[in-house]
């Protein structure tokens, strides 16, 4: 891998590694909410005869605790710096580098996700495993497939957030778009509840026509082997398609944004 990508990813990693107390506080919050969600879902499952939306007890535990861990890795709630830099005009510095800002932000975000993986992901998963016991995959291949699916989820989420940031070129204040995104990406990605509990047609539309399930539900389903390994491969393939489509969209929108560029505060 060329040096510049490694250097950017390392910078992203180090940038977040600076804030260790924030990482610890974030992991603690994830754990607290993990307990709440886990107890609620297990009670619902007990009332419903042992499963919810086709997820058995251990699968639900894994769904909750891996989800709590992935929250900071995928990072759908935090916007990229790009939007703020467009608003303040600092984006000029990004455009004056001999590298496409899309790749600068992407590699930096991968570094950030790497740091989140070794801190924010590990803590809730270990707590969940000790307190409840996680689902143990039957296939060895599930482990690397989960990592691939998680990496793709990070990329899908990055591309979505990059597109949201790019709207700042037209709107300057993107708080409205961000609020809409936080709501939809939470509800439609399987973060709040497994998408399987939705009506069949709605769940199908979300899976086929939107990238949201690729953010959370996809890696979580891979981890709990919902539908078996073949289904996991299909889901991961779908994520890959979304990554390609969304990054192409990012390039196209960025091209247009830069073309109409009027740097603020000139």
């Amino acid at each position, binding site marked *: 891998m060329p*040096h*510049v990508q490694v*250097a*950017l990813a390392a*910078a992203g990693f*180090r*940038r977040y590694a*600076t*804030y260790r107390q924030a990482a610890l506080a974030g992991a603690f919050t994830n754990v607290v909410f993990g307990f709440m969600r886990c107890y609620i879902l297990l009670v619902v499952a007990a009332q419903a005869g042992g499963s919810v939306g086709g997820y058995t007890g251990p699968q639900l535990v894994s769904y909750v605790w891996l989800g709590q861990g992935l929250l900071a890795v995928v990072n759908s709630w935090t916007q990229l710096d790009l939007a703020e830099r467009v608003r*303040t*005009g*600092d984006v*000029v*510095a990004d*455009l*004056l*580098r*001999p*590298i*496409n800002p899309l790749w*600068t932000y992407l590699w930096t975000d991968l570094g950030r996700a790497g740091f989140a993986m070794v801190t924010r992901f590990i803590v809730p998963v270990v707590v969940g495993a000790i307190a409840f016991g996680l689902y143990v995959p039957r296939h060895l291949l599930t482990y690397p497939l989960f990592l691939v699916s998680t990496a793709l989820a990070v990329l899908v989420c990055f591309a979505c957030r990059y597109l949201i940031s790019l709207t700042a070129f037209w709107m300057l204040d993107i708080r409205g778009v961000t609020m809409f995104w936080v709501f939809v990406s939470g509800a439609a990605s399987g973060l709040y509840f497994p998408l399987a509990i939705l009506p069949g047609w709605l769940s199908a539309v979300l899976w086929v026509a939107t990238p949201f399930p690729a953010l959370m539900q996809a890696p979580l389903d891979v981890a709990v082997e919902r539908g078996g390994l073949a289904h996991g491969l299909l889901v991961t393939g779908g994520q890959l398609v979304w990554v390609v489509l969304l990054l192409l969209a990012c390039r196209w929108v960025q091209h247009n944004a830069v*073309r109409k*560029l*009027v*740097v603020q*505060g*000139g």
Partner: protein
Amino acid sequence: MIISASGLRKEFTVTRKAGRFRRERHVVSAVDGVDLRVERGELLGYIGPNGAGKSTTLKMLTGVLTPSGGEVTVCGIEPVAKRTTLARRIGVVFGQRSQLWWDLPLGESFSLLRHIYRVPAGDHATRLRQCSDLLGLDEFIETPVRQLSLGQRMRGELTAALLHGPEVLFLDEPTIGLDVLSKQAVRGFLAELDARGDTTVVLTTHDLADIEKLCRRLVVIDHGRVVHDGTLDELHARYRSRRTIVADLDTPWPPNLKIPGAEVTTVEADGRRVTLALDGLAAGQVVAALAQAVALRDLSVQEPQIEDVIARLYRDAD
């Protein structure tokens, strides 16, 4: 010629409310036909009042803003079309923007830039050493950028802009908000850079001391047009800037008294303080004539103020 612009124009469309639902569109001309030729190794002061079009010109020269008209090349390259190619050959510091990574130590920003610009490790180390020696970076190179003072950050920004060995350095108000010592450090560094002669510098500033100490050539822009292109001395000559003598007297100034080679401009303090502008005669001769005509208590000779001449230039252009 390293920078060439002819008839450079930039117009912005601004929408204004003209009723409850109606909006009117107005075209505002930020840069209106600027011609500029800069030779390799020059240090050019590009000045003008707020809103004159300085930053807009700089953005067009660096390729982040598409001109509405005219032609421009920098290092023989058309900036907007080849922005990323040009980025390797120019350095830019916007005084109110940052190109450093906020959360990382300054030194890590520098090594990241080395990778981004693909600078050989040896060249990077040499340039960093030079900048560090001149700007005194060593004491804060391990400090995260967010903890740097404005003066320290600006020294970091200057270094960041030079590590890839750019042919042209664009500086947009690099001394804005700096204290006296930091300003001196930045000016000293730019003077050194100018003396070496291998980097062309285009400097926009409101700090007239920057201009006086650094810029041999001055391009003044107002309302998007060039209103002066020449040396500071030429600007003084154009506005007939004159040295002045301020004299405090024991007795009031006789109303009709004339001193050869000087013009009385103000009489204050009940006639006990008089200001005379010199019309080309040596100050000594005028002082001698003055001492013979009136009883002098105190006296000072003042050089023409650059503030005055620049203010007159801006006023004239209005």
